[in-house]
């Protein structure tokens, strides 16, 4: 047992920090999920391209596809540092989900063609899996793709298209075989968003971000934009969902916790500092506990990878804990801060309104399936309870 980083890993962390020192002014840090400020997004694209230029978007990919072939822990370290500074890394649907799908089920030719581009962030890709009637139950999607010579004709409606207006490609799934069973007959495509028949209407979200309804109306997509095998989409997505190494989700909570703790050390309420209020201390302890739980779950993933062990409890425990912790964590932040937690801006808003924003963001915890669905996975696949 060991929870230390090697000297090489420490050096890598320093390298990441140096990069961020050089390339990320603190005022450019923002949450790409929930901010539509055009200037910040421009910065984000440029910043992400710099990360790509260093090969870090494809850090874990095999070198033959433009990756650096580094182990997942290096990705985790990078992620810790990026989260700690709220680095505005955009385009994870491309270098994350699309690339992960390719690595999981792409043909050799596809991998050769797409991965280097994705790793350099040459393509800005939007999410195009969800449909109005297919959320957690992705297999019920109804968008169709019909083969017509060297093209596919795709029609259907997609929803929750994240970053649709910042992207120029859509990574999407369509039913290419209507006679096959639910999980078969799904095929993946990269669809250029400027093709005729593609249109979008905005879906603004509670977090302050923009998602979209995306309408695909007999969009003719070249066959070469098919990703993976025909009918192999389901398998690929399930294996790839936000692949690309181990994400340091805990660092998001650690950053928030540090900010709240600092607030409590600085802020008086009534006779004393918040940090000296016994109830606030219990709540801070709960926050620290949640952040620590998530950190250890991340580290366990690293450890499991290092030891070639399968993920714990069907891979569901980390997802369940983080999905369920998120609203609870930020409700606790609200309670610590008190009625001022509702303020968004101005000199009276604690922590520049971050607590208010975090709270709204906390309800965006359903990507990749709800916690309810993940609990089922944990119970059946992880514990062996009957389906």
């Amino acid at each position, binding site marked *: 047992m060991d929870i230390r980083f090697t000297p090489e890993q420490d050096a890598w962390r320093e390298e990441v920090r140096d990069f961020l020192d050089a390339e990320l002014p603190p005022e450019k840090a923002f949450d790409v999920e929930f901010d539509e400020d055009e200037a910040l997004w421009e910065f984000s694209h440029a910043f992400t391209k710099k990360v790509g230029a260093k090969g870090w978007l494809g850090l874990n990919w095999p070198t033959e596809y433009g990756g650096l072939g580094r182990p997942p822990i290096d990705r985790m370290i990078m992620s810790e540092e990026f989260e700690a500074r709220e680095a505005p890394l955009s385009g994870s649907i491309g270098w994350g989900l699309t690339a992960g799908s390719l690595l999981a089920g792409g043909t050799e030719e596809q991998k050769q063609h797409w991965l280097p581009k994705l790793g350099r962030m040459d393509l800005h890709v939007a999410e195009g899996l969800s449909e109005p009637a297919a*959320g957690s139950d992705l297999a019920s999607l109804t968008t169709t793709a019909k083969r017509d010579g060297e093209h596919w004709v795709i029609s259907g409606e997609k929803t929750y298209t994240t970053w649709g207006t910042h992207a120029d490609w859509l990574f999407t799934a369509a039913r290419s075989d209507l006679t096959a069973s639910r999980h078969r007959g799904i095929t993946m495509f990269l669809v250029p968003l400027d093709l005729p028949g593609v249109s979008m209407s905005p879906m603004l979200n509670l977090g302050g971000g923009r998602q979209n309804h995306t309408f695909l109306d007999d969009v003719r997509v070249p066959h070469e934009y098919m990703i993976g095998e025909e009918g192999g989409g389901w398998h690929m997505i399930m294996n790839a969902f936000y692949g690309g190494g181990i994400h340091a989700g805990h660092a998001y909570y650690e950053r928030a916790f540090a900010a709240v703790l600092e607030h409590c050390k600085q802020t008086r309420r009534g006779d004393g500092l918040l940090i000296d209020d016994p109830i606030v201390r219990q709540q801070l302890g709960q926050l620290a506990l949640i952040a620590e739980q998530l950190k250890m779950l991340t580290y366990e993933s690293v450890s499991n990878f290092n030891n070639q062990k399968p993920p714990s409890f069907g891979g569901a425990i980390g997802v369940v804990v983080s999905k369920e912790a998120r609203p609870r964590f930020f409700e606790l932040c609200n309670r610590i801060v008190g009625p001022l937690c509702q303020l968004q801006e*101005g000199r009276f808003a604690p922590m520049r309104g971050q607590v208010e924003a975090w709270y709204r963001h906390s309800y*965006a915890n359903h990507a990749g399936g709800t916690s309810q669905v993940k609990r089922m996975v944990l119970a059946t696949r992880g514990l062996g309870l009957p389906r």
Partner: protein
Amino acid sequence: MIDLEFSEQQQLLQHTARNFFAAQCPIAKVRSLETSDLGYSDELWKSMAKLDWVGLSYPTELGGAAGSILDLYVLYAEMGRCLAPTPHLASSVIAGETILRGGSEAQRGRLIPEMSRGDLIVAPALTESDGAYGADAVQLVAQADGENGYRLEGAKILVPYAHVAGQLLVAARTGSGPDGVTLFLIEPGAKGVDVEKLGNIANYPLFAVTFDGVAVSRDAIVGPVGAGWATLEPVLDRASVLQCAEIVGAGEAVLDIAVNYAQQREQFGQPVGKFQAVQYLCSDIAIDLHLTSLLARQAAWRLDAGLPHAREVALAKAQASESAQHMVRQAHEVQAGHGFMMETDLQLYTRRAKHWEFNLGDVHHHLDAAVAAL
């Protein structure tokens, strides 16, 4: 006689109010008002005044309808259901009832009829920059200034409807301890008063008001000097119960939203409402708001009956603050990604619930207050 039902008259009010707000304040209007400059509709407010709802609890001789707190409860539940944006809690209840209770004959005669007609809004300015709740939290200084007046120095925050108020009702410190709080009526346009909008999660019309050596004459004092908190406290108890009622009404709407979604949304080949996990989420909401309703109605009834009520009010608001938070979280779990979209109605409730959770004391304040009352 144990009877938790509303009277026939109250049921009639409930019915009238439900229809009124459904017609006059549909959810589309709530959305557009939220981002308007005023943040509420003066037309709606005046219509309410015509129905005698603005001064519902005021004496008839001052233009009111002599309604009970349970009558108000009924109205608030309906306002909560429709998210009707009105200055009722701030102006009609907190400010108006404080003036009724502590004000001079002249103050009452001058202000209350105008308030009843919906022509005057009075904004209570109680909270200060640390957000604390209670007499101790009043720190804004009112320094005696010669024979005839005071000078106010300091800031108030979370002041509702200050932008349209004809008067501010300001709690200031004229001495130490709980008996050192005095209430002043001050015009927002007075020299040295500055009003600044506070952006907030609910887009509720909340303001910071700063007082830079504002001169006030003695006749602007409401009630005896030093008796401000004693005047205010019973009114805040009433307001807390009405805040509970608003949460209950909103909760019933949230429950409808969640249940309807669970019945209609299909995943994995069945309505999601068939999954026990979703049934738990929906029943959590039902339980929360039902308990809030029971506790709040009890507190309201005790207020009307003139019985001791500190414990019951505190428990009701503790429950309501918990419920305000918990019911929206559970509804978001039911609606998942869908509920996160601004186009759904749920988020309208979610954002307001955060204001309600902390308005008039949070769960910690009220649990402690309940124990203090034992």
